[in-house]
């Protein structure tokens, strides 16, 4: 395997890791605030559809992005209502949201576009195009780095860079601001936050809303950047891989980046079975590579490779007084 092939695989890794990273950070905010969210998948899917649909109708990818975020936020509010206001089961709510998105996207797509549950292909106006970073030509003559810069670092859509920037930002918000401290506290011990005179309900809704926005970005990236348009079930389990990455990262932002890159790398490898075979000298079935993130998560959850301990109040609705 030559250097260029490696760079190409890493480039694909970054592309495929981006939606995982958005969704993983989305889950991070929600679960750190004590709201389990297995509806990441559904929110991504809804956002993917609405961003592609509105972008194709309006011709502007930015309006599409807003629509995608709006759709995802709407589902977040449903999740918030169920799990915060009505103190229902957060897991069941997440399952419901996944099916709601899966059914509604096809239903509406069929009604709007009559193309068997997909949107029309998006032109370059209605997509996030790859942007060339400055100095590509200047660096081109530098050995190794020039190639890395032009192939791997430059030439992604703007959302890829947004996702990468969201990691330090999330770290800063969670661990260096007052809001972050409260957010983490509400996921560990909501009664303490309540005693300090801060609204648990408000904080949790805020966390769920941030989760919605980030899932919206993930979905919009899928439909308007990674691919040109929406097809049914296009999130194809990424919300669950993101959940796996979140557990793998033990609910920490920087680790989330690395686990998403790792899982993105597995996905990129399953596109290049020839490379895998050349490197390992054995025929590894592509299905094994597909399943690897899930298998790894089970291994991590089993506590054989470090123990993943979720936020203590996760999944528990907060009742002010008994």
């Amino acid at each position: 395997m030559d250097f260029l092939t490696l760079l190409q695989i890493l480039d694909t890794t970054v592309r495929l890791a981006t939606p995982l990273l958005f969704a993983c950070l989305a889950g991070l905010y929600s679960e750190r605030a004590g709201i389990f969210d297995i509806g990441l998948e559904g929110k991504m899917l809804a956002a993917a559809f609405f961003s592609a649909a509105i972008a194709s109708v309006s011709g502007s990818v930015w309006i599409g992005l807003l629509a995608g975020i709006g759709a995802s936020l709407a589902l977040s509010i449903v999740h918030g209502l169920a799990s915060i206001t009505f103190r229902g089961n957060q897991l069941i709510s997440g399952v419901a949201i996944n099916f709601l998105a899966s059914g509604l996207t096809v239903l509406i797509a069929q009604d709007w576009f009559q193309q068997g549950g997909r949107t029309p292909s998006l032109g370059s106006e209605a997509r996030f195009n790859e942007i060339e970073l400055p100095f590509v030509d200047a660096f081109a003559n530098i050995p190794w780095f020039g190639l890395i810069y032009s192939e791997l670092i430059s030439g992604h859509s703007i959302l890829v860079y947004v996702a990468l920037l969201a990691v330090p930002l999330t770290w800063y918000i969670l661990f260096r601001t007052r809001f972050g401290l409260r957010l983490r506290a509400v996921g560990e011990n909501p009664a303490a936050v309540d005693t300090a005179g801060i609204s648990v309900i408000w904080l949790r809704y805020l966390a769920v809303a941030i989760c919605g926005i980030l899932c919206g970005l993930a979905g919009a990236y899928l439909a308007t950047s990674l691919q040109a348009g929406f097809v049914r079930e296009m999130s194809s389990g990424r919300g669950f891989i993101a959940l796996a990455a979140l557990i793998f990262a033990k609910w920490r932002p920087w680790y989330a980046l690395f686990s998403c890159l790792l899982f993105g790398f597995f996905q990129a490898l399953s596109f290049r079975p020839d490379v895998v075979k050349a490197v390992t000298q054995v025929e590894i079935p592509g299905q094994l590579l597909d399943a690897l993130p899930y298998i790894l998560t089970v291994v991590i959850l089993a506590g054989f490779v470090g123990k993943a301990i979720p936020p203590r109040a996760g999944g528990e609705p907060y009742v002010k007084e008994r």
Partner: protein
Amino acid sequence: MDVMPKWADAFLIPLFSILLAFVISALVILAIGEDPIAALKLMIEGTFGRSEGFGYMLFFATNYMFTGLAVAVAFHARLFNIGGEGQATLGGLGVALVCLSVPWPHWTLALPFALLGGALFGAAWAIIPAYLQAKRGSHIVITTIMFNFISSALMVYLLVEVLKPEGSMDPTSARFVDGTNLPRLSDILGFFGIPFSSAAPVNISFFIALLACYLIWLLIWRTRLGYEIRAYGQSESAASYAGISPTRIIMIAMIISGALAGCMAINSVMAAERLVLNSVEGAGFIGIAVALMGRSHPFGIVLAALLFGFLVQGGAEIDFWTSIPRELVVVIQALVILFTGALDNMVRMPLERLFLMFRRKKPEGS
């Protein structure tokens, strides 16, 4: 403490929740410019107008009874088994292996072994998440979701690389021998001289599913083990104080749950006479809606399974005749899960207030 009488809790709340789900579904149909009344009519005609449609409804309901029971047994132990889909997939593998390994002379021989194979494989797929929950404290919801994905990858691999007959292009197993063909409802009814469409795949498994419902009712409410499962589900600390081992209950509840989901395959896989990709077709997930709607009671599960059988068959019908795609059923399923499961309190709180109001008006001592 009880604000509402038992009947209201058991019937009124699910009824209101389902009504809400249906009203919103009707609004969705209106929003895409179709007539919900006409759609409902079409669904009813397509299901009850012909015995073939009715047979399909019973066929689907058979699947949902098994998966609904699977989710319900786990619910009684306060375990949320989302892995019904994967367990049923593996159950399909078990049934297919049994059917393919022996040249069965007659279905009466094949069925018990197929049932055993499905149950064993389904249970095996549930054991690992159960063990991890009981011993390592990893959350069963996440592990069962992961096992769903692992099972589908495994099934693609097995069908493409192992089970596919030489020279075939489709990722399906070889056809089962004729000795595994289960008697269809038309055969059974024909024996009594009642005509029924032989095109519908509903078969003897329907009665096995009903029997399973009865047996699970016996297990949960009439046996010591059922009592222990319910006690553990109500309060883990009280149960362990009473000497009930949490590990044992988690393992047993999940084994029964997985086995039930696996048993679904005698209906879906044996009727298809071969193992195909995605033989479960979401029945594992519909089981969640069925169990929630049926309040984890076998009788409720039979009713809910029949309702979902109707919805899926009716959904196929409107998919065929109108521009409403069959995904409408997924939307209804999602709304049923949402209202009967997650937004339960939204329906419950106003109803409780209503009952309290009437109670206050009554004179003292009544």
